[in-house]
């Protein structure tokens, strides 16, 4: 039965990918890539990787579809036809592909049980995580503690993306004045949506906090929580207007918080160093190593959540501000 579900999901994935490659209607491409993410989330769920499925559903199908749509509003719906010679690109792709496949020949057979990963690392994590870290969700202990460096890198990637978008879509001094003015949202007249959103928003926020702080025990963590929180804010922005939301989340504050999250993560690492441990070795944070791990993971996940949420909101604000500016201020 499980194999059957896998086969169906995988063939859907292939079909969606082919459709994405063939289409020129970018709106449909965005929708299809959302479907692609949802399908892969189901596939991960089928493989019992609940955390990964959760991340894929919230990041891939949720917020990136939203951000794509927001940027689509700026660039237009249809892909421009470009005249180019595909032969050179095809040659490069074929050569790289051949090299990559040649490289995989040295790797252990796919899924074979005697690969190094299944010999040393995985059993260690699965057997000793409860005694060493004391967190029931092994994924969280691997992500935030054993592989803390990697997660710091991922958080930095998101922070860098935020900086990149901010510096590309810089706000000039003249537009700063315009930014203060009140501008109605596009969906201002959608009364039913506004009522339902008002009812749902607190639930979304509470759910985000639950995902953030329950990540030690169930699927979830900083990445998912930050994205869900940002989705709630984005929903509010779409219905009540950019200027209303910016009263609660000013641009300066978002930039500050994006940096603050990374700083919190790095700061925990430095604190560990100062207390005599290794970088990101949370054992030294408290007298009891397991309590130290708990505190460290909590702080680190909080840092990830803050950075992810602020960067996502920031990017959405930037895109929306462009749209608003072209609609109301550029003559």
């Amino acid at each position, binding site marked *: 039965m499980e194999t059957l579900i896998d086969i169906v999901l995988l063939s859907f994935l292939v079909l969606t990918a082919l459709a994405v490659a063939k289409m020129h209607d970018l709106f449909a491409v965005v929708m299809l890539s959302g479907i692609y993410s949802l399908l892969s989330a189901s596939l991960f769920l089928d493989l019992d990787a609940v955390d990964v499925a959760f991340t894929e559903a919230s990041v891939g199908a949720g917020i990136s579809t939203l951000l794509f749509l927001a940027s689509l509003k700026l660039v237009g719906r249809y892909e421009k036809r470009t005249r180019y010679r595909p032969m050179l690109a095809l040659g490069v792709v074929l050569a790289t592909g051949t090299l990559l496949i040649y490289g995989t020949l040295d790797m252990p057979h796919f899924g074979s049980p005697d690969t190094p990963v299944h010999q040393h690392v995985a059993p260690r994590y699965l057997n000793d995580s409860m005694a060493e870290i004391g967190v029931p969700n092994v994924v969280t202990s691997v992500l935030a503690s054993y592989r803390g460096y990697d997660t710091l890198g991922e958080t930095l990637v998101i922070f860098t993306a935020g900086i990149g978008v901010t510096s590309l879509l810089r706000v000039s001094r003249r537009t700063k004045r315009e930014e203060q003015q009140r501008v109605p949202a596009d969906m201002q007249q959608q009364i*039913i949506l506004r009522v339902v959103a008002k*009812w*749902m928003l607190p639930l979304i926020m509470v759910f985000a906090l639950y995902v953030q702080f329950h990540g030690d025990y169930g699927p979830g963590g900083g990445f998912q929580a930050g994205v869900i929180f940002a989705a709630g804010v984005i929903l509010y922005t779409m219905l009540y207007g950019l200027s209303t939301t910016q009263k609660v989340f000013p641009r300066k504050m978002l930039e500050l918080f994006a940096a603050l999250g990374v700083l919190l993560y790095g700061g925990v690492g430095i604190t560990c160093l100062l207390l005599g441990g290794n970088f990101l070795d949370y054992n030294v944070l408290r007298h009891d190593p397991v309590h130290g791990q708990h505190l460290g993971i909590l702080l680190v996940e909080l840092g990830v959540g803050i950075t992810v949420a602020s960067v996502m909101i920031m990017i959405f604000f930037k895109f929306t501000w462009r749209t608003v500016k072209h609609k109301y201020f550029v003559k």
Partner: protein
Amino acid sequence: MIELLLDMLSWVLLLSGSFFCLTGGIGLMRFPEFFSRIHAASLTDTLGASLILMGLMLQAGITITLAKLIMILILSLIAGTTASHAMAKAALKSGMCPLDQVDRSQQPEIKAYKDKS
């Protein structure tokens, strides 16, 4: 006895829910224009999903799973209908008109709505 009855009832609910999901899918493919398609699609996530959820509730018994399923039911009922409403309204706003009412699009109230938005 009661258990058998509950089981049968739950299977009836599950199967009828699946039936509505299936008809929703077929309708989405076969109906001629947007508004009837959206009708079929919204059938999937109101009637289909709620019947399946109710069937699962009967399977779950009085546990924490039941509470979770009830929450999912409430959420999907509200979110699904709202999404369908938003889509239909967006379509109307962007100038689409139900197929059997194309000639009505010149009528004053629809025209006034379009001009306003």
